[in-house]
Each structure stands twice: as structure tokens, then as C-alpha cells.
């Protein structure tokens, strides 16, 4: 533990330069070599420091060798970033070999807190750190995919396979109840954590303003970060850690640090991946004549009158089986889904030392979607440079340029409704060709969709230390994104007239931060650290669309707007933004001998989108930490590596409103006295007293490491989100219909545990496991008074899957009809004792084979009053497992993640069975043998009889709003499996290589689940498995890491 103090002293507190020359001592020349404990290879670039003077003598060369003049009796320290510092006392030997080992000890890590590097043992927040290794070897378009299951409390659901899009990310449960859209399109407003990339904040939710109906390219800013360029990722979960990031940190903070140059000799590293994306198992379909005979059989066996049977003769595709047009067996899903072959390449060049280093990273990633005509390509060029001539001055700058090109086909990216509906077409139809296909097919396959997101991010950062301990630093960054989308639909796919859609958007963020820090140690043991800074954001975004419904021909694809009659859209979209945020923050940390730590922070955020009466949001936090392993009664326990207790409280206050909710909406209201009048929109009353959302969180944490093998991190928390935005409906006497109010509150509480075991560590064989899990429960705390504790968000779509908010219950519950099975016989249908009528719906009595839906109110009529609160769309347990093994040069990694106790609505199955509802329609038919369906009286079945097409409309046995489709969404997924081989360095040196590693990996390998649908993860955040979603492919990859031997 003393080493930590040393490190701390070295890194944070200014080094007190001893200038005394030990001239009276005898110097000898020491030659030596520094080797890595694991690989037994020389480590280049290690700083060799004389302990007495704390002065760097030299650095090791490419072989790890060094030569220095050292006074006899002096001690040499060998320091290298990411390694434990080793020491060697020089007596008389002139040739030494020093072994240094990678620093894997949790608590000696340096983490970034409020933009400052701090030793982890003196911070109280709940922080998890991942390294670049955790997100390597699996090519993905968005690195979030790979964080799944690696951090307890960070719930990532990779719920879309659409290339370039994001899944859902939540830190410690729900923070918003804002839902837009209806039915399958219901979209829970994402509350993604704040991402900070190399000190510059980034808004990950940027592309999600429009829910599923993405306007513009929809490329997530995170999809523009190449995974190969990531050094480490740090996840801040509790409010004490995030409060210094202000309102934008309310949903957690994820800090990504990209790689720095760190090699005396330039290094050239190349990573390449070739990967295959395979669509998941698709819906089974009966083809050709089987389809026809099934339909005819269905019609005859279930006909209620002769006309229904006669109608067969009038339905050409059933009757005219010899007609070539109706005599096919087309696999429509195959028309839309494909297995794709993709590649990614990344070339990194870095070099330099601690005084000056540089890095350039070039990346190319190309992924074709498993749905045809979709895909994502990324091009990157990232460069950074750090100049640190001495300990007083540091300068860092980066320029990142990236282009994301996305192809969404004719869908909206996340949803591919066109493909979903055309995939259900009858197999009897001829396969697509230019002349013989439905417009939908051509639309899906021939729509030219060109999306570009071009991003340029630049940053400079300088730090100067005036006197030891007192430093000022300043950061200035500019981030600019230009988004364009052009969609051209050819005439054959759009009713004989070509169509053109054009989107152009731009986004910028100018960001400045100035900080002053002061570190001071009083009386050896009292350490103070003061950090104050201010931040200014200037953000803007504006997007416009132009749409031409009809253009003259397929050849003329622009300019648009030649004809006013067919012009649609235009104008500025509602994501217009012009905002300024100014913040001031300060924190004080105190520790007594690194044993007792106390931290206090306070931050003020002023934004232009807060209500006039609450322009500043105030974020404060307190953190306490007790490193009990440093207590006298434990300090001599060898088995205990570290142990600490943490207790924090913090608050994040984020403005929720927008300018409209504060100031109202004003419209042009026609003329009065020949003068244009402007009046208020009476839908929404302005609320200048709108309060910001307040997230306050308590966290109690516990860290323990023992026997150098086991480490446990446990956190338990209570998070309360108050003043959430919620509409109140006003009495019509007010003249307005809605008021944006703050009377919604939710709480999340839970615990997180992570356990790491290094089972075996030896020269040839390493074995380690880790398990983590998080339990989170959310509770609705309050609703506006007049709701009396319940609000139902009625679903206006045909699915009728309502969502209910009830105080005291989990916040997002379903409001559905309760399915209790299937009536085996007619006599099982209950009879109204008063009227003698059987249980009925829509004027039709239930029969055997119909679903047994609970008559909640007891009137023997199933109607809109027979709904009950049921289920919870949010998972209670999430977590992951990992297993890492190395045997000699072979490595094996397995990552798994799990989600348990959540309710999924299997709408895909409901839709699939419901294909059978109309045998006269030109739809495919699906085999239902795998399902427990009622077929004859007496059957004790799970699913109702779907073939009774005459009564289908009235009874709706497969209605989506029943608990029949509610299933457990628990799953265990083997995310990744990576097998790698590292070539022997001596061998490959002959070929001019310093490093060569090949690996095979898979992503989304297998999911274990009782869920009856294809994938329990591929569901929306509201737990709906929608049949028009984008399936998550399985990826098989072969990759290569290569480093050129540029030394010597």
C-alpha cells in the first residue's frame, strides 16, 4: 500500500525536485533489461528513475534494454504506464534484469473524476473501469454493444441489429417515463449516460429525437468511434461521481479515453477483421401447394355457410392452381434477408514518450445488414498529440474525423415495416422481377438510400502549474456534424412516379472548460485537493427536409422542388436547437493518510431551457470513504489486499422542459384589420415555473480484495428521480388543454455486485473468472394529484397494449386482458346467472377453442373494462459472466450476459399466428405444429384456435392485448467467444513483425431462454417483440492483430 502513496505523490502532487548532487558517491554504469512478467519479453519505453533524486535517467529501448550511470547504493525505479513500479537496489552489479508486471490491482488505478486524474482509492464514487481489451476482437459498429454484461448496473440491451444504430442503455434503472408513439412503435425516451471522449462531452441520444421514426441518417455519435482506438472506458454510476458533470450526468457518465502514443520507437499496428453476419432463424413458412391446400382446407372445415366455400372458386390464387402466376413457391423472406460478408481494418501509428507523444489511427468498417439494402460504413481518421516538456506544462490536442454512411433501405432504420409485411406475402406469387413484383418488394430492394453523417471533433487542452500543487488548465473543443439523407424511390416502386426525399442537418457544439486545481499536503497525512472549473457549451442544430412526391422520371434525381403541387415537407424540423449552457463547479477532497476520505462538490448549471424562475440547477454531492485495510488492526493481514467502504450522496438536476413548455407556442392566427395576428396555441399553457428534474442518489459501496486473487465490489443504492415532466390535463374553463408539470417521480433501488477471481496465474497458464449482477427495482412515487395514483397511457393502435403508471408499483406495467387458457369445450364457457347468456364479446358468444379471457368486472361481457395491471417491461436482474483463459500462446475469452425477470409481449408470435385469420388473403401461411394450439373439443391448449376465420373479427382470439403473449424475457446469452493465438515473437521477428496475433470470434453466439420467440433481447425498451424490428444477426469473425517491428 505504500506504493500507492508513492504513486500518488509522484503523479498528482508535484515532485519536489531534489537538486542536491550526490557527488561524493561513486557512480557505476549499470546495463540491464526490463522484461514483462507475463510475456518474458523486453518492455520498451520504461522510465528508469533514480529514487533518491526522483530524476529520470533514461528509458528502455525496443528490446527493453537500458544503460545508466547510477550511484552505488542507489535505488532505481522502473516506471511504465499500466505496470507496477519495480525497484532495484544497485550495489555492485553492473548487469541487472528487472521484471515488471502489469498493474491489475483495482485500487491503485487512476480514474478520471471531474476531468481530473485521481487515485481510485481516494474517491468515494461508484466507478467501474474497463480496458480497451474488453472491447476488442469483436467487430461492431457501436462499442456499446460490447459493454453489455461487463458492468453491473449498466443495463445494455442490444435490441436492434440495424447496423450503425444503438441498443438501449440505462444506468441503474429507469430515469424517464416519457413514451412517444403507439402500438409497436411505442418508444421510451432514451436516457443514455453522458459520454465524455477525451475530456469532451458528447450527446449519445442525438439521433433518437424522433423515436423509431428516425429522421435523417440516425447514425449514433457512438457509432463513429472506432473500437480499436479505445484505451479504457470508465463508467460512473452514482450521483457523487456524476454530479460534477452537472445536469447532463444525471443518467450516469461514461468516459472513454482513446489511445496515446507511448513508445520510443514508432509503432505501427494493424487490426483487421473479416466477419460474416448471419440472419437469425426466420419464420417458417409453408410454400407453394402446401399453402394452397392448407388454405382450402381451412376454408372448408371452418365455413359457416355455403358462400364461404363458393368463394374459393372466386379467389383465383386458390382456384386457378395451373395459372403460372399463381403456381409458384417463393421464399419471400429469402428475398429480403441475406448472409453478409464484411470487413474492418484499422491502422494505428503511435510513438513518443512522456514528453512528447503522438498517435494516428485510421479505421474502416463496413457492415452490410442482414436485411438487404441496409448497411453501415465508417471511415475514421483520429489523431492526437501530447506535449509535456516538464511537469509544469502539458499540451494535448486531437483531431478526429469520421464519416458514417448508412443505408436504411426503405425502412426507418430501426423498423423495417415494409420488409416485415412483404415477407408475409403468399408464396404462390411469382418471385420478384422488374415486371412481376409488388411495389413493396421493389421499394424495399431498389430504394436508393444514402445517409451520411460526417463528424469532425477537435480539441486542445493545456495545463500549466504555477507553483507546486496549483495548476490551471483550459480545454477548447469544437464538434461539428453534418447529416444528410437522400432517398430515391424509383417509379415502379411508388405507383409509377419516382419519389425523392432529402434531409440535411447540421449540429455543432463549441465547448470550453477552464479549471484551477490545487493539491496540498499538510503535516504529512492531511491531503487536500481542490478542483474548480467552469464550462460553457454553445450548441446548435438544425435540420430541414424536402420531399418531392412525384418527379418526372427515374433519371432525374434532382434538383427537387420543381413542382409546388407535389412538394412536401420543407422547413426546419422540430429538433432545432440553439442552446447555451454555462456551469460553475467546485470540489474539495480531503483524505487523512488515504485512510479516511471525504469529498464535497457543488455545481451550478445555467441553461437557456430552464424555466425563468429556476434558471440555475444546483448539483451537490458528498462522498465518504474508509479504506479499512489501512487500519492498524488490518494493515498486517497479508491476505487482505484492500478493503473499503464508501458512502455517497449526490444530486443531479437536469432541465426537462423545452422552450415551448416554458414560453408557450405562438402561431400566426390570420388577419385582423388587415394585420397579421400572432396568438398563443391553446393546447399547452406556458409554465415559467417549470422545475428541473432532480435525481438524487445514495450509494453505499464496499470493495474488498484478498489473496491477490479475489476482488469483490458491492454497491447498493437508492435513486430518486423527481420532478419528471408530465402533462396535466386542464379544465376547459382555463382555455388551455394541457400544462407541462413536474409532478411525476420515480425511485430506483437495487444492488450491484461484481466478483473477480484470478484462479490460476502462472507462466504458461492463466485462468480467471468474473461474475457480475445487478438488481434494480423501480417504483413510481407520485403522479399529479388529480390522477389519484394511476394513469393509463392508452394505446391508440390496433394492438391496444396499454401502459399503466400506478403509484407504488413498478413504473411501466402493462394493462392487458388476462388470459387464463383456452376453453376446451363449449360447456366451459361461463353463463351469466342473471340473463342465462354465455360469456360474450362484441355480441358473439365464446366457444370452445376461444381464449379464456378473464371477465374482470363480472358482467359476462368482455370489453374495454376487462383490463388488469400486469407485468413489468423493465428487467429486474441484469449482469454478465466472463471467463478468460490463456495457455501458452493460446487465449480463450468467453463473455456472457443475462437478463432476468422482465415481461416481454410476444407480438411477433401474435402476428405470426394471426396470419391464419384470413385464408382468402394473399398471405403466406405458417406451420403451427410447434405450438400447443386448440384443435378439437377437449384439448387443453395454450393457444386459441386461429383458423375460425368467420368469427375472427368478433372474437379476436389472437388479440394482442392479452397476457397470452406476455412471456418471461429472461435469457442468458453467450455474447462473445474469442479464441486467439499469439505467435512467438522470436519467430515472427524474422518476418519483420513485432507482434502477430490471430483470432476467431463470434458475437451474439447463442441465447438460452424459455422465450418462444426468436430472441428475447431483440425487443423494444418497452418489452415488445415486434415483428417489424431489425433482427440481431449472429456474427462469425476472423481477425488479425499485427504490429510492425519498426525498432532497430
Amino acid at each position, binding site marked *: 500500500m505504500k506504493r500507492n502513496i508513492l504513486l500518488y505523490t509522484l503523479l498528482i502532487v508535484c515532485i519536489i525536485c531534489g537538486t542536491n548532487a550526490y557527488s561524493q558517491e561513486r557512480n557505476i554504469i549499470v546495463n540491464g533489461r526490463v522484461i514483462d512478467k507475463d510475456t518474458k519479453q523486453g518492455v520498451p519505453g520504461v522510465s528508469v528513475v533514480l529514487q533518491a533524486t526522483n530524476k529520470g535517467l533514461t528509458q528502455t529501448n525496443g528490446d527493453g534494454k537500458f544503460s545508466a550511470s547510477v550511484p552505488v547504493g542507489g535505488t532505481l525505479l522502473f516506471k511504465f504506464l499500466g505496470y507496477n513500479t519495480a525497484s532495484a537496489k544497485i550495489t555492485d552489479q553492473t548487469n541487472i534484469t528487472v521484471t515488471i508486471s502489469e498493474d491489475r490491482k483495482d485500487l491503485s488505478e487512476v480514474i478520471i473524476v471531474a476531468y481530473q486524474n485521481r487515485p481510485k482509492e481516494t474517491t468515494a464514487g461508484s466507478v467501474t473501469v474497463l480496458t480497451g481489451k474488453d472491447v476488442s476482437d469483436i467487430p461492431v459498429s457501436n462499442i456499446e454493444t460490447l459493454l453489455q454484461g461487463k458492468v453491473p448496473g449498466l443495463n445494455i440491451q442490444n435490441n436492434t441489429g440495424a447496423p450503425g444504430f444503438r441498443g438501449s442503455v440505462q444506468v441503474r434503472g429507469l430515469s424517464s417515463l416519457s413514451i412517444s408513439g403507439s402500438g409497436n412503435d411505442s418508444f421510451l425516451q432514451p436516457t443514455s449516460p453522458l459520454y465524455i471522449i477525451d475530456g469532451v462531452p458528447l450527446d449519445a441520444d442525438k439521433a433518437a429525437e424522433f423515436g423509431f421514426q428516425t429522421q435523417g441518417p440516425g447514425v449514433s455519435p457512438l457509432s463513429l468511434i472506432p473500437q480499436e482506438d479505445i484505451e479504457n472506458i470508465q463508467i460512473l454510476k452514482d450521483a457523487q461521481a456524476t454530479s460534477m458533470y452537472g445536469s447532463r450526468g444525471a443518467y450516469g457518465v461514461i468516459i472513454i479515453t482513446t489511445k496515446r502514443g507511448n513508445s520510443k520507437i514508432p509503432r505501427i499496428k494493424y487490426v483487421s477483421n473479416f466477419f460474416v453476419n448471419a440472419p437469425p432463424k426466420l419464420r417458417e413458412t409453408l410454400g407453394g401447394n402446401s399453402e394452397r391446400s392448407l388454405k382450402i382446407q381451412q376454408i372448408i372445415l371452418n365455413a359457416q355457410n355455403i358462400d364461404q366455400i363458393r368463394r374459393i372458386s372466386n379467389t383465383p390464387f386458390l382456384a386457378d392452381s395451373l395459372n403460372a402466376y399463381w403456381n409458384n413457391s417463393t421464399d419471400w423472406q429469402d428475398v429480403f434477408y441475406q448472409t453478409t460478408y464484411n470487413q474492418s481494418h484499422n491502422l494505428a501509428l503511435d510513438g513518443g514518450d512522456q514528453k512528447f507523444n503522438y498517435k494516428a489511427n485510421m479505421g474502416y468498417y463496413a457492415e452490410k445488414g442482414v436485411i438487404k439494402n441496409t448497411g453501415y460504413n465508417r471511415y475514421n481518421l483520429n489523431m492526437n498529440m501530447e506535449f509535456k516538456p516538464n511537469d509544469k506544462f502539458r499540451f494535448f490536442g486531437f483531431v478526429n474525423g469520421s464519416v458514417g454512411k448508412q443505408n436504411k433501405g426503405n425502412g426507418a432504420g430501426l423498423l423495417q415495416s415494409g420488409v416485415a409485411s412483404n415477407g408475409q406475402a403468399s408464396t404462390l406469387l411469382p418471385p420478384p422481377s422488374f415486371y412481376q413484383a409488388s411495389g413493396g418488394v421493389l421499394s424495399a430492394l431498389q430504394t436508393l438510400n444514402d445517409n451520411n453523417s460526417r463528424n469532425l471533433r477537435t480539441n486542445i487542452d493545456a495545463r500549466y502549474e504555477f507553483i507546486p500543487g496549483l495548476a490551471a488548465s483550459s480545454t477548447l473543443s469544437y464538434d461539428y456534424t453534418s447529416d444528410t439523407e437522400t432517398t430515391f424511390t424509383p417509379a415502379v416502386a411508388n405507383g409509377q412516379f419516382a419519389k425523392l426525399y432529402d434531409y440535411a442537418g447540421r449540429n455543432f457544439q463549441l465547448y470550453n472548460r477552464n479549471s484551477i486545481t490545487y493539491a496540498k499536503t499538510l503535516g504529512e497525512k492531511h491531503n487536500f485537493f481542490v478542483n474548480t472549473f467552469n464550462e460553457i457549451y454553445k450548441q446548435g442544430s438544425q435540420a430541414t427536409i424536402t420531399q418531392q412526391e412525384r418527379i418526372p422520371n427515374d433519371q432525374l434525381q434532382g434538383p427537387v422542388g420543381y413542382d409546388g403541387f407535389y412538394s412536401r415537407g420543407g422547413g426546419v424540423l422540430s429538433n432545432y436547437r440553439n442552446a447555451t449552457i454555462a456551469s460553475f463547479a467546485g470540489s474539495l477532497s480531503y483524505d487523512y493518510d488515504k485512510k479516511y476520505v471525504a469529498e464535497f462538490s457543488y455545481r451550478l448549471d445555467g441553461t437557456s431551457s430552464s424555466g425563468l424562475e429556476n434558471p440555475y440547477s444546483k448539483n451537490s454531492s458528498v462522498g465518504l470513504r474508509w479504506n479499512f485495510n489501512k487500519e492498524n*488492526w488490518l494493515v498486517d493481514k497479508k491476505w487482505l489486499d484492500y478493503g473499503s*467502504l464508501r458512502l455517497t450522496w449526490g444530486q443531479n438536476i437536469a432541465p426537462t422542459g423545452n422552450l415551448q413548455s416554458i414560453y408557450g407556442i405562438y402561431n400566426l392566427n390570420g388577419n385582423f384589420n388587415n394585420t397579421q395576428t400572432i396568438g398563443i396555441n391553446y393546447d399547452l399553457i406556458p409554465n415559467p415555473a417549470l422545475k428541473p428534474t432532480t435525481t438524487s442518489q445514495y450509494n453505499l459501496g464496499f470493495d474488498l480484495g484478498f489473496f491477490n486473487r479475489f476482488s469483490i465490489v458491492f454497491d447498493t443504492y437508492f435513486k430518486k428521480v423527481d420532478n419528471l415532466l408530465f402533462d396535466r390535463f386542464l379544465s376547459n374553463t382555463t382555455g388551455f388543454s394541457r400544462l407541462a408539470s413536474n409532478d411525476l417521480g420515480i425511485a430506483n433501488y437495487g444492488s450491484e455486485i461484481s466478483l473477480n477471481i484470478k484462479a490460476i496465474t502462472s507462466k504458461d497458464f492463466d485462468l480467471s473468472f468474473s461474475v457480475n449482477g445487478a438488481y434494480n427495482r423501480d417504483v413510481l412515487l407520485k403522479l399529479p394529484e388529480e390522477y*389519484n395514483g394511476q394513469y393509463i397511457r392508452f394505446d391508440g393502435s390496433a394492438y391496444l397494449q396499454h401502459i399503466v403508471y400506478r*403509484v407504488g408499483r413498478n413504473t411501466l406495467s402493462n394493462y392487458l386482458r388476462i388470459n387464463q387458457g383456452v376453453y376446451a369445450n363449449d360447456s366451459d364457457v361461463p353463463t351469466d346467472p342473471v340473463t*342465462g*347468456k354465455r360469456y360474450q364479446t362484441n355480441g358473439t358468444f365464446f366457444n370452445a377453442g376461444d381464449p379464456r379471457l378473464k371477465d374482470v368486472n*363480472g358482467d359476462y361481457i368482455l370489453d374495454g373494462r376487462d383490463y388488469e395491471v400486469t407485468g413489468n417491461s423493465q428487467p429486474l436482474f441484469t449482469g454478465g459472466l466472463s471467463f478468460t483463459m490463456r495457455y501458452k500462446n493460446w487465449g480463450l475469452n468467453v463473455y456472457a450476459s443475462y437478463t432476468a425477470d422482465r415481461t416481454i409481449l410476444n407480438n411477433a408470435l401474435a402476428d405470426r399466428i394471426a396470419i391464419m385469420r384470413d385464408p382468402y388473403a394473399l398471405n403466406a401461411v405458417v406451420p403451427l405444429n410447434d405450438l400447443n394450439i386448440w384443435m378439437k373439443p377437449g384439448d387443453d391448449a395454450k393457444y386459441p384456435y386461429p383458423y375460425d376465420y368467420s368469427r375472427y373479427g368478433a372474437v379476436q382470439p389472437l388479440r394482442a392485448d392479452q397476457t397470452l403473449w406476455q412471456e418471461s424475457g429472461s435469457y442468458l446469452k453467450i455474447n462473445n467467444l474469442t479464441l486467439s493465438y499469439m505467435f512467438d515473437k522470436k519467430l515472427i521477428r524474422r518476418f519483420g513483425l513485432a507482434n502477430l496475433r490471430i483470432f476467431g470470434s463470434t458475437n451474439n453466439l447463442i441465447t438460452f431462454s424459455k422465450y418462444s420467440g426468436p430472441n428475447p433481447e431483440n425487443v423494444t425498451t418497452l418489452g415488445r417483440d415486434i415483428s417489424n424490428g431489425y433482427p440481431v444477426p449472429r456474427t462469425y469473425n476472423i481477425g488479425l492483430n499485427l504490429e510492425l517491428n519498426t525498432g532497430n
Partner: protein
Amino acid sequence: MIRFRNIKTNTRMKPIINKYFVVVLLAALALSGCKKIFDLPSEKDYLSNNVNFSNKILEPIIGRTNLIGGFNSDNSTNPITFEIVNARFGDGKPVTDLFTTAPTYVWTAPYTGLEKSLAEIEAKRKIETHQIFEMRSSGEFILWPSATNQILKPRPTDSTNLSQDTRFFDVKVKNTGGERLIRDFQIRPYRERPYEPSNDFNAFTGLPAPDPKFPLDKKLRDYIRPYLNNVIGATSNLNLVSNNDKKDAIVYIRPLTSGGNGHTLRIVVLGKDSLPIDPKKFNETVWAKMIHGFNMQMTDKYVQYDVAYPIPLVEIPTSYATGGSRAKVELSYSRLGFGGGRTVANFGIDFAIYKAGDWEIVFYFKTENPKFANE
């Protein structure tokens, strides 16, 4: 923070034990239902502030099954219980007759119209004793058919709605989330109408209804009228009609005076001389499938069935009551028309009888008999 200090001081004193204490404390904190610690609201049933009834004036007809809905729970959580409280007349006199108990039929299995015997029908219902007026869990009011004019005094015969003649009551709506009292319901029952159509008597007084054409002429009265198709008068050779102007045929639905067994329905056709016409003359009539009755007896004066009352038993479409709410009696006969073609005539009535007993349906050809002879 206080807890933090406590641990510290404790642990200093007994190092090893107290390390476990810390672990136990953490485990306890994690596992104990956190709801208590955090003072979270507990879930309770929802009872909307807007629960109401769409209609607070109930006008049931005594003697039949009256199921009156109109409760709007506004998505309040079921089960909801309803209680009728504070039943009183408008002048404050307490109301008790509403809560008289009486045996009544309760269905236990669905009536289908396919039952083969009276016993099979009776097996599907049983007699239970209920308050004649009660509410069930759906918020529907039930006035059971066991209510009679004697038990429950109907609304005044002069058709006034004076407060002192009107029964008022309140309804207490309750679930575990709370309760609401909905005040001032009124119940104004109509006197029994044992059969339909009932245009032959006045709904308020029960006395014969006046002729709709001459309401002030006390000598005339209104009759139930059958439908007639292609029924030709025996003497006039004209189509017989029954409407407001001309009543060649009328219908009586009336208790059977003799020959019944307590659950009998008899169908009689009277000629203009008030003597029965032999039912066999209605040669095209499907007697066996006309009424859901059993043990059909056909004499030369009438046709009689053993039936279960009410008719129809349940208001669902069956072959006996295609619309559900009315059973049908249809008599038809054929004869040779002009040119030797066979011509079919029929007449009948859609009816319902609510009160159990012995009933007869009488078709009375007042002016002339139907013509059975061939042309």
C-alpha cells in the same frame, strides 16, 4: 454518516468479529425489502375520482329480468364492491320493499335451444333466493323476475313522478383503494307486463289501452295485432289485414283458464264466430319446431305444449327465436290458387311471455275466417 462512525468505533474494539458485522450489515441492507427503508409508497388499488353511473334513474319493468348497466369505473381496479345504502322515499320514509327476498331462477349452464326435454332445461337453472333488487360486482343493477306488483309497488298509475312516490338510494363504491358514495339514484319501476307485445294495456295502470286512432273513445280499445301474409278472407276474397284502421285479426295473449298444468302454452285460432278453427287446417305449419316446447298435444281446437317460462328462456338467437328477444308463432296453410298454382298463406306473431303459468295465444279472426278452399 452516524452509522459509519459507529461501525468504525466498533470495529476498532473487536476487529475480526466486526468485519463480519460489516458484511452482515451490508447483506441485511441489500436483502431487507428496501421499500421500508426508503419509505416508498405502497401499491394500492386504484379508485378513480370519476367513477359514476351514466344513468341514475332506473326504470325497470317488474316481473322480468332487468339488468341495468351504466357503471363507469374509469379503469378503477377490480374487484369493486357495491352497496346500496340509504334507500328512502323522497319524503324520507325508509324503503324496505326493494330488499325483500324471493326465490328466483338462476342460470348455471348456457341455454342453447337444443334441449330435448323440460328436465334438461331445468337442469341448467336452479332456484336461489335473492333480494329482488341487488347489485353485482360489475356495478349492474338487477331487478329479479321474482319481483311482483305486490312485493314492489309500481310507479303511480297517474304517471306522475312525485318525490314522495319515488324510491331514492345511494351507492357506495368500494375497493381497497378507497370508497366513493354516489348519491341519489332513483328507481321507478313499471308495473308488470307479463307478455309482449303489450300494447293492449296501459303500462301505468294495467287497464286496457285506448285505440291509437281514437284515444278518447272509451268504447274502443287497442289490440295485439298479428302479421298476415296472403291470408284471404273466406267471403270477401280480399287479403285480410290487421292495422290501425282495420282489424280483421287480433291476438290475445292471456292466461289459460283450464286444462293447464302450470307450464302450458296453448295456441288457439278463433273464427269470426268465436269458435276454434281446427289447427289441422293450417296444413303447412311446422308445429313441432315452432315453439321450444314438449309433449305437443294437437286437438281439433288447439295445439298445446309443455314449455318452460319465460319464453324465450334466454335472449339469444335460436331457431325458435331468431332475433333472440321474441319467440315466434307462425301458422301457415296452402291451397290451390288461381291457375292451379299452390299459394301459401301465413300469419303469426313475435311474442314473449315473462310470467310462468298457463298461457294461451289466441288468433281471433274478427271479421271473416281465412279461406282454406282451393280456387
